Each structure stands twice: as C-alpha cells, then as structure tokens.
C-alpha cells in the first residue's frame, strides 16, 4: 500500500489536471457546438470569439462549459473520450464493425489491433535483427583489437546522431527495389536498436575484472572457454539493460517508418488523424503505442528476472 498510494495520487492528480485543462483548451469548439445546439453564447459568432482570449470566453459563458468534455474533435479530448475511442476502435470495431467478425466473418483491418499488429511485427523483426547483429559485432569488437579501434568510436558517435532522419530515405530506396511492407520498417527498427545493443554489450563483455580473467588464464582456458564461461555470463545484466533501450527505440523506428508510406500501422494512424483533425484517433493510437512499449519493456524485464534468477544472481 505504501508503494501504490503515492503513484495512484500522482496519476489521479494528472487526470484531474487533464480534465481542468480541457476547459480552456476546448473553449472555442465547445461554444461553437453549443451555439449550433441553440444555446445563447456571448460573442455570438465564431469570428468574434476567435479574437477574445480563452479565459474571458470562459468567464462570459460559464453555463455552457459543461460541454468541454464531450466536444467532438476537441483540441484536447478528455480521458474518458480517449478510452471510449480506444474501446470503439478495438473491441467494437473487431466485433460489430462493417468489417468486423459479425459482418464479415474475419477480424477487421481498420481496428487499432490490426494497426498495432502491423507496427508490432515490424518492431519485433527489426529488434531481433538489430539486437542479434549488435551482439555479434560486440563479440567481434571484444576479440579483435583492430575492430575495436576502428569501429567502436563510430558506434559511440552514431548514438549522438539522429538516425531517425534516415527513415524516409530507407523506405523510398527499398521501395525502388520493390521491397515494401514489413521489411523497410524492420530495417529502420534494426538500425535504431543496433547501436545501443553494441555499446551495452561491449561494456558487458568487458565487465569481468583483471582478477577473474587472470584466474581463467591460470586454468589455461582458451578464448572460447573464457567467452562462454566468464564474459558471456557477466554481460547478461548489461545486455538486458541495453535490450530495453533497444526495443523502445525499435518501436519508435517502426512508427516513424510508417509516416512516409500510408499502409497501416500506428504511425499511419497518427498521421491520418493529424491530417483530418481526428484528435481522439491520434490520442488513442498514442496510448495504444504506449501500452505496447510498456508491455514490450515489461516482457524483457520479466525474461531478465527469470534469467538472472536461473543464473543464481540475487535480485
């Protein structure tokens, strides 16, 4: 209870602030909607209202402000509107939608679950490629001095570079080879998760101290045995830390990779929402992506806890 109490308070406080913020944020839209519904609004046309400040509008129209939490296409949708949109675009769409299970017999391709799956599959494929190559390069770097001195500085520098900028180009270039769909996004995801894993893994493989390495040396252990019995086990905590960073980066990569080509996915959903002013759609996609990120990181955390426990590390 001592742990949950403060967190709950903070979350509730954020919710309360959010609801309060809805009033000034949505005042223009609320008043327009109320005017259409026949209520009396002072300045009585939208153009006059546009020239009045938000807060004086609120003071002049206190009775109509209750509509702030139910405006369509609000500048800031209220949390319950977003939850409703999430429900509509997942459960309702899948089951009762025009292309849902009741009407067409298959799952809808317009639901957030479908879009989320498009993004998730690219993220996971890209992450697997990126993390796999990252671990391999790290092993190479630790064992070859030439590789270490040539490649490692670039791997570190590359972390300060906004690699996402490459995303639109990768999509278009791969498209000109006839490659589209999942692979280009996975390439971006892989690229983004690659360098954090390399840097973290090199650190991990180097974490055994001189004493431990010397001990294996006195056992006459070769490079292979040293790697499997000492370096790899001691790199595990570092590996998982960088994997968590990597998977979050992968998800960002997949979302950004969906911006140039509008073929489904959470990124496409966000951009579509911003084109058509469907704010609830953007927020719902955002929360869906956030939930996915949290789940992915939690999943890696769970595997980490299991692995460390099996290895006998005290948590």
């Amino acid at each position, binding site marked *: 209870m001592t742990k949950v109490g403060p967190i709950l308070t903070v979350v509730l406080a954020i919710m309360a602030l959010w609801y309060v913020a809805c009033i000034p944020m949505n005042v223009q839209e609320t008043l327009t909607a109320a005017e259409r519904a026949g209520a009396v609004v002072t300045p009585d046309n939208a153009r006059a209202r546009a020239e009045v400040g938000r807060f004086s509008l609120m003071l002049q129209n206190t009775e109509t402000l209750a509509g702030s939490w139910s405006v369509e296409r609000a500048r800031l949708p209220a949390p319950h509107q977003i939850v409703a949109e999430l429900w509509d675009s997942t459960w309702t769409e899948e089951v009762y939608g025009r292309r849902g299970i009741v009407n067409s017999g298959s799952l809808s391709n317009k639901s957030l679950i479908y879009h989320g799956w498009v993004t998730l599959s690219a993220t996971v494929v890209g992450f697997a490629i990126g993390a796999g190559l990252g671990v391999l390069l790290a092993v190479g770097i630790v064992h070859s001095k030439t590789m270490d001195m040539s490649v490692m500085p670039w791997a570190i520098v590359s972390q*300060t570079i906004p690699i996402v900028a490459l995303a639109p180009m990768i999509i278009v270039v791969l498209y000109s080879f006839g490659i589209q769909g999942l692979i280009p996004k996975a390439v971006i995801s892989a690229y983004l998760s690659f360098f954090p894993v390399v840097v973290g893994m090199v650190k991990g493989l180097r974490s055994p101290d001189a004493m431990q390495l010397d001990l294996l040396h006195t056992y006459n252990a070769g490079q292979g045995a040293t790697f499997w019995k000492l370096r790899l086990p001691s790199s595990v905590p570092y590996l998982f830390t960088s994997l968590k960073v990597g998977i979050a980066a992968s998800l960002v990569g997949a979302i950004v990779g969906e911006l140039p080509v509008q073929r489904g996915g959470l990124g496409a959903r966000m951009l579509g929402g911003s084109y058509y002013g469907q704010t609830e759609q953007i927020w719902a996609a955002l929360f869906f992506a956030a939930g996915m990120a949290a789940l992915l990181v939690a999943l890696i955390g769970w595997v980490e806890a299991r692995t460390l426990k099996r290895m006998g590390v005290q948590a």
Partner: protein
Amino acid sequence: MIYVLFAALIWAMGWGLNAVIANGRAAKTSAAQIGVPLIFGATVLIIWELLVTGLNISAVILPAPTAIASAFGANLAILWADFFQTFVKGAFSGYVIGCGAAFLVAIIVDRYDFLRRGLLPVGNFVAALPIVGTAPILVMWFGFDWQSKAAVVVVMVFFPMLVNTVAGLRDTSTMQRDLMRTYGASYAQTLLKLRIPAAMPFVFNGLKIATSLALIGAIVAEFFGSPVLGMGFRISTSVGQLALDMVWAEIVVAAIAGSLFYGLVAKIEQWVTFWHPSQRKH
C-alpha cells in the same frame, strides 16, 4: 569491374594498416586512438565512392560521397537556414526549457518524499514510451512553426532528465549529510553546497541523453507539418523529389550538429565535474 577490384584492394589496405597500428607498439598513443577510426572512416568512404561508380548505382538509390559533398557545398545557404530553423530555434530552445523545467521539478520532487515515490515510477514509465507520438498533437496545438518542435523536444527530454536528476540528488551518503547537519546548514545550504554538486554527474548524464533526443524530436516533428524550411521538411520533400544527395547532405548536417552538441555538453561536464573519478586523468 576494375573499380570493384580496386575497392577490395583499398579495403584490404585500410584494414591491414589498422591491424598493424592496433596490434603494434603505438596502439596506446592518442594519435593512434584518433587515427585508426579516421583511417577506417576514410576507407569506407573511398570504397563507397568506388562501388557506386564501378557498379553504376543510380543516384536515386545511393549517391556517391563526392556527389553528397558537392550538394553540400552548393546548398550551404539552404542547409544553414534549415539548421537554424530546426536546431537553434526548435531543438535548442526546447532542450533548454525541457531540461531546466525537469531540473526544477526534480528539486521539488526530491524535497517531498511522497512526490518522489509517486512521480518517479510514473516518470520512469513515461521515459520508456514512444513520446515522438505526441508530435502530431503538439503540431496541432502550437502550429507549424518552431514552437511546436520546441514543445515536442520539451516533452521528450523532460522525463529522462527528471529521472536522472532525482537519482543524482539522492546520491549523497548519510555521513556527508550528517556533516552538513553538524555545521548547522539549512536545507537550502545543504542543497546548494552538497547535493546539487553531488548530483552533477547524473545531471550531465541526463543532459547528454537529452542532446540526441532533442534533435530526433525536432526532426520527426517536422515530418508532421512544418513551414517550408527545416531539416525534417527538407529530408521528407527531397526524398519525394528523389534528390537523395540533398537528403544525405542534410543527414551530414544533422550528424555534425548532433555530435558537436554532445561534445559540447561532454566538455562542460568535464569542466564542472572535474572531481569525479570518471573524469580524473591517470
């Protein structure tokens, strides 16, 4: 074909040279530490150039380094305007506001244990989320110009900075705090003279993470709408025009800006936290 063979030869030479230096006696010198990666980078560039020419790779797939360099030289004015719009106006102002706000909030959070226990898990959670997704919303709120980019950057850098600073402010031992108490130091004095200086390595860790996030945020936010300049705008429109040499030139600018920004923060860190073990020269 001759170009490809030549490229293979250059690769063998560059790698061989590096192998000799790295395994030789001079490997520990600073000249070798800088020289080896530079030789590697130059080798890659030369091979890139040779392969593009040798295999007749079209400029709409991969432009040669010389083509990128000439695009860079020919469009200096545009690149500078884009850089100013995205980096100075968008990324840097957002960076300063976001990191400053996070620092102040961290001090308040640290003062009240209840807030720390409540806000820190939330902050940790948010720091792992794909916050670039707020870009379309913030672009809608703050318009297409640099203000919306700065807002995205503020949201992106806030939580990593907050989490790091709070961790840093707690990084004093009981002994040190007790010493301050025996001096009769007030809360403010303890904060200013002990805890903020002790937090600096963590603060700079947050600041360094935030440098790359700031550039990412500013560029990605421009993909959602921007005035007719800016690095993200130029990248997405040049990709549309298949002017890939311009895209690469813009990426070169982003790379230089990103690493210089990081280098600058790292330099200031060295200067501020000279006392920390990781900064001491052996």
